[in-house]
């Protein structure tokens, strides 16, 4: 199973945000998307769960193949797709519900009512998201009582509860303090065993620490895609070199 992007172009109205992107990602790896603001990396990330569909005036050409299936095919059911491709956002966005109900949300909207199954899944997801020990005694409390870092791990648990195969992360730690960030990074490292992770990050060290492969975007183009160690030590392109060493961006 692979994630393949073929000749993808994306337009917001007249503005072309992605230019002929071709890329192949392996399963059970962490791929980091890096590049200066406005380079198209977040737009590229949102291709995989068709979040760009929610924006008016978007036009997409090309193919995105997940498991051999073009997700931009007319037969694709977007709701079903999004159950398989989870997403964690930049700012924690828990629902105004209890901690328990936040994680159970994805199950409930799928019509699952089996109480024991829901309880087990919620517990397992919170354990996987490294949050269980901190919240096990207050599952009925509002999610808003948690700290920002805890809320973000709750959002990760919420995503894991519906057992996606791919988890997209859009700068998941950028709004958090260093300790919370470290926790999220450890978590991503663990999750790799079970999930394929694609992560957008502005933080070069973070990309270097957690990812197997790194893709560098600039002005809507994919400049370079390679093993993370190579991108950060011996990149092929000068632009990549300049960016990762902090000379621009």
């Amino acid at each position, binding site marked *: 199973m692979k994630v393949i992007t073929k000749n993808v172009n994306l337009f917001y109205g007249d503005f072309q945000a992605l230019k002929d992107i071709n890329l192949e990602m392996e399963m059970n790896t962490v791929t980091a998307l890096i590049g200066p603001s406005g380079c198209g990396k977040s737009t590229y990330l949102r291709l995989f769960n068709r979040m760009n569909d929610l924006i*008016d005036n978007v036009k997409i050409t090309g193919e995105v193949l997940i498991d051999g299936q073009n997700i931009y095919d007319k037969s694709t059911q977007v709701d*079903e797709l999004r159950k398989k491709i989870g997403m964690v*956002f930049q700012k924690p966005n828990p*629902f*105004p519900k209890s901690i328990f109900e936040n994680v159970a*949300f994805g199950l*409930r909207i799928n019509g699952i009512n089996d109480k024991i199954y829901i309880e087990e899944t919620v517990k397992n997801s919170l354990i996987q998201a490294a949050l269980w020990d901190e919240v096990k005694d207050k599952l009925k409390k509002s999610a808003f009582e948690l700290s*920002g870092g805890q809320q973000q791990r709750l959002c990760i648990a919420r995503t894991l509860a*519906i057992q996606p195969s791919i988890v997209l992360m859009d700068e998941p730690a950028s709004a958090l303090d260093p300790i919370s960030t470290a926790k999220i990074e450890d978590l991503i490292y663990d999750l790799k065993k079970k999930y394929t992770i694609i992560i957008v990050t502005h933080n070069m060290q973070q990309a270097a620490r957690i990812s197997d492969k790194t893709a560098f975007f600039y002005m809507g183009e994919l400049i370079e895609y390679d093993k993370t160690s190579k991108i950060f030590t011996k990149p092929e392109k000068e632009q990549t070199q300049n960016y990762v060493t902090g000379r621009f961006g």
Partner: protein
Amino acid sequence: MKRNNRLKEKIAFTIFSIVSFIIVIILFLIIAFIFVNGISVISWDFISKMPTDGMTGGGILPAIVGTLCLMLGSIVFSFPIGVLSGIFINEYLKDSIFKKFLSLMTNNLAGVPSIVFGLFGMSLFVNHLNFGDSIIAGSLTLGLLTLPVIITTTEEALKSVDNSVRIGSYALGASKLQTIKRVVLPIAYPNIITGLILSLSRVSGETAPILFTVAAYFLPRLPNSMFDQVMALPYHLYVLTTSGTNIEQSRPMAYGTALVLILIVLIFNLIANIIRKKLGQNVKMK
């Protein structure tokens, strides 16, 4: 230069506080005036007995019951329609000319004078649909009047819901309807309920829309069905002050009626505030 700015700052502050203070004083004066003049007639009999002696004696029970019936009746009609259209406008319609047109129409509806609603209600509900002067005709007319308020508050309440939770819900594979029902409405509904209650208190005080559709000049009995006519507080107040059998003698009754009306409005506003605080606590964003 700096000193000049500080002086300006002080003058502006003074003007702002004086103006706010004047508003509070005016409100206080109105309430105090009604209270002082009306409190003498307020008694258990006044709110639990029928009017007697050409409305110079007895109580105002039928007017209280009538007003409560109209509040309930109008809300049963306008709340579902108003909230559903608010949801449609804010959640389903994309920014387009049609949406602007709808908003414009809603605002225009809010600007229509209440007497026009009264005439419209009379010709449609009373005459054309043959409801006669009745609670249902009055309720529907008042419902129309409050519709734009409910639509607008629903829209505003939905607008204040952070988009990130909608996106989060979609990202978990929720449909639009599931997102609205399970995520958006629970956050928005303290504000929607508040709007509802405020529109209720507005309904309680409207006179013009009920003038030709339901209000009875003198009807010392309680309604049996929604096709009955009723007395209503604001109209009763009007009658007592301008066209009663003995205006001088019924004056204290008029102040008492006004006081009861104001108390009803105050109580509903208080309830609105409590509900907003109570419900708001569960969904407060950090």
